[in-house]
């Protein structure tokens, strides 16, 4: 099943539809799906909808720690309308509480009782430029990347429009990447993965939109423009250190 979700481009139309469908289950995506994909393939199938055996309806994404107190950032559409939210990392599963949902961006703040990793560092003022190499991956895919020795970058910034709050990235990430951090060459979080656009790019909420949301909720983040990792340090490993899988159970 995973192979269906990976990659896009010269694929049969229905695979392209799956890739486009995989990020969101929210209304914004629903509008997009009607205009660009077959109406015969509802997005809920890709969102790991109702389990045919257990009847459990759930959606999954990625979240990452923004401090050492268990506060995590993810995409709003991953954790809205949930009966229960669970964060899992390295064999540990913790119930999470949804602290805040952004009204302006696809962002959510959740909290687990204790941290399970390293806190992310945000850029103080450095902004990504077009063609900058970045790293982004769903938490569930990181183990494969790490097993193969790690990775410096796997995506490219297509458009960094200061002020728009959106970072457009050329990336293969698919289902489960919503809420994942976009790491630049210095391992700073430059964005949070939100959705795939009609142009088949990945849209991420940029750091300059993330920081006010966290500040409004009393989260003190670490900001530093200096590199947080050595020049040849694997960003895949750093992503694994700061992030975790998040699952929203809806019934």
């Amino acid at each position, binding site marked *: 099943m995973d192979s269906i979700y990976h990659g896009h481009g010269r694929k049969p139309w229905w695979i392209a539809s799956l890739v486009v469908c995989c990020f969101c289950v929210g209304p914004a995506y629903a509008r997009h799906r009607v205009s660009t994909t077959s109406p015969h393939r509802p997005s809920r199938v890709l969102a790991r909808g109702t389990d045919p055996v257990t009847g459990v309806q759930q959606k999954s994404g990625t979240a990452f720690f923004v401090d050492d107190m268990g506060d995590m950032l993810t995409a709003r559409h991953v954790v809205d309308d949930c009966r229960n939210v669970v964060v899992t990392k390295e064999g540990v599963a913790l119930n999470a509480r949804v602290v805040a949902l952004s009204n302006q961006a696809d962002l959510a703040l959740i909290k687990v009782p204790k*941290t*399970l*990793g*390293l*806190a992310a*560092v945000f850029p103080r003022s450095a902004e990504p430029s077009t063609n900058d190499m970045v790293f982004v991956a769903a938490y569930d895919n990181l183990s494969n990347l790490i097993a193969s020795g790690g990775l410096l970058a796997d995506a490219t910034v297509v458009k960094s429009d200061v002020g728009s709050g959106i970072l457009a990235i050329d990336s293969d990430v698919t289902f489960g990447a919503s809420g994942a951090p976009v790491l630049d060459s210095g*391992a700073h979080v430059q964005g949070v993965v939100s959705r795939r656009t009609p142009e088949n790019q990945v849209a991420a909420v940029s750091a300059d939109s993330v920081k006010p949301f966290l500040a409004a909720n009393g989260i003190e983040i670490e900001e*530093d423009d*200096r*590199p*947080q*990792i*050595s020049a*040849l*340090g*694997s960003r895949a*490993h*750093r992503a*694994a*250190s700061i992030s975790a899988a998040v699952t929203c159970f809806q019934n």
Partner: protein
Amino acid sequence: MRPDHWLSRCAERIGSSGDRGRRFREFGLSCAIALAIVSSPVLGQGTGSDYLPASVAPPSWGQFSKLVKYRFESWIAANDPVAKRLRTYLQNEAGRGDGPPRVIRVRAWINPDGTVERIAFPTLDNAQADADFQTILKRGNVGEAPPPEMLQPINLRFSLNLKK
């Protein structure tokens, strides 16, 4: 074992391996990080001339040290017999006149693959506790490679003031 003796032996063993051998001879970083097993952190700072304070170390070193700190904390808090036995001992004995100190400095050497090569710390005044501490802190992988230019060992301060 005296640290100088151990470092000399270590350097001899890996002396031909270029940068890695130099890494061990050029010690070390005092990352000034408290490994607070309980809530109150204790900030540590190296005082010797061989230490590079965290305030002037590259951020990548600090981030890696934080990761090691987190890993050590989680391994000590793990739900397994060895960690439980150590915690029980520390809860009962830490701070007593003849027991382990409330705060100890732990030096850690991390391999390029993220495994813990060596741990050095003052005795906890109990052979079983010393062995358990060694076992716990060397049991896993911290998850990242140390920055190649980073001086080692990493110095961490543990507060052993576990609440009963």
